[in-house]
């Protein structure tokens, strides 16, 4: 097996064009899959030494997050806390300290588990993804990207995430079987435009209820442009339960998740809207 450790994005993309290689980000999923024989890469391109992929910065209207930023780095970033609270919150509870020190946001998307903690917040916040492949650069909304199969064509590198800074309030909550090291059984990320007690655009993303995390169009439609009050919250809970019921159908976990989602939804709102409904 060939092993490459490029120093720049350019080198990484060049190697990916010559070898049928697998990108190695944090490795918390990839190394395990190699160990159990689930995958047998011909070659590995370790992205760990490319410093430009680790940057977290604000540039003209966007929060840019390099694909190799770890969950620990994101979870300790004041910038992420200020501009993308839902993502910051997701980074606090993902895995364990050890996993957060290794696992990256890009790897979270690349592996794309149904329960990936990083994706619902990014969806809710309207993130775009910058991809680099032999065809060149492409900036695509995460929502669009997640509708593609396969997710990424061979040799495509996830360069960075771009979160448009539109002043959205956002929150996140997940249901796990324990506090640490819990794989999400259900996660909810919400981002809303909020002016005084008036809700503008609303985006609700769900994790672990489908094959991939997704944004609910129905909830966006039903909850946008309204007064923020207990009635609105109840309406949201009723809606999210209906969406989960329809998404899960007759799956064994459906009755449990349908019930639990109301609490998770309320908790996600509670991460940025105090009880009573007044703005933070």
């Amino acid at each position: 097996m060939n092993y490459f450790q490029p120093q720049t994005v350019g080198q990484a993309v060049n190697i990916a064009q010559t070898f049928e290689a697998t990108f190695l980000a944090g490795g918390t999923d990839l190394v395990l899959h190699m160990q159990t024989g689930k995958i047998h890469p011909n070659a590995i391109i370790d992205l760990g030494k490319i410093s430009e992929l680790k940057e977290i910065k604000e540039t003209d209207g966007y929060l840019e997050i390099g694909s190799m930023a770890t969950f620990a780095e994101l979870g300790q970033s004041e910038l992420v806390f200020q501009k993308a609270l839902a993502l910051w919150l997701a980074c606090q509870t993902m895995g364990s300290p050890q996993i957060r020190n290794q696992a990256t946001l890009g790897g979270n998307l690349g592996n794309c588990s149904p329960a990936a903690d990083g994706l619902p917040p990014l969806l809710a916040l309207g993130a775009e993804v910058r991809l680099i492949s032999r065809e060149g650069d492409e900036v695509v909304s995460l929502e669009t990207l997640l509708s593609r199969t396969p997710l990424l064509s061979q040799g495509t590198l996830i360069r960075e995430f771009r979160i448009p800074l539109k002043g959205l309030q956002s929150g996140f909550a997940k249901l796990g079987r324990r506090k640490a090291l819990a794989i999400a059984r259900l996660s909810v990320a919400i981002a809303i435009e909020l002016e005084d007690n008036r809700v503008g655009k609303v985006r609700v993303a769900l994790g672990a209820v489908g094959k991939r995390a997704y944004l609910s169009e129905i909830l966006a439609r039903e909850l946008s442009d309204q007064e923020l009050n207990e009635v609105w919250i109840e309406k949201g809970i009723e809606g999210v339960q209906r969406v989960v019921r329809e998404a899960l159908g007759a799956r064994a976990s459906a009755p449990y998740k349908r019930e639990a989602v109301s609490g998770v939804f309320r908790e996600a709102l509670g991460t940025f809207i105090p009880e009573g409904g007044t703005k933070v």
Partner: protein
Amino acid sequence: MIEIKFVLNNKPCALNVEANERLLDVLRNRLGLMGTKEGCGEGECGACTVIIDGKTVNSCLVLAPQVDGCQITTIEGVGNRQSPHPVQKAFVQVGAVQCGFCTPGMVLSAKNLLDKNPQPNDKEIGVAMSGNLCRCTGYDKILRAVKLAAEEGKG
């Protein structure tokens, strides 16, 4: 084979490794450092915790070539009978050790916490230790030991 160089417990180390070799296996099988334990092999239990460049990681999920150029600390690099690390001393004093299989990983997580944050509060201790599973104790003594180590460090 890939040649890697790294600093292991403050000593330079150079090795040829396979691309798919885990750091855990390199430490145990090639370097004979048996203090790093394998409890689950999938990043759940934290028994294989090592510190790489100031961060705790599960060495069962790290490929050996990834650590080229890194600084690694294993339990063998922390304290000894003549001068135990305050965390090790506290674990013994409080009785935070039962079967001992999780202990090296616990000690490394606690040490790394105190290196970064010498006076952690209870919540910070809880979070820092949350990636290390123990099946014998109720964690209470382990958390108390970390607290004691922090208090000892103060004086």
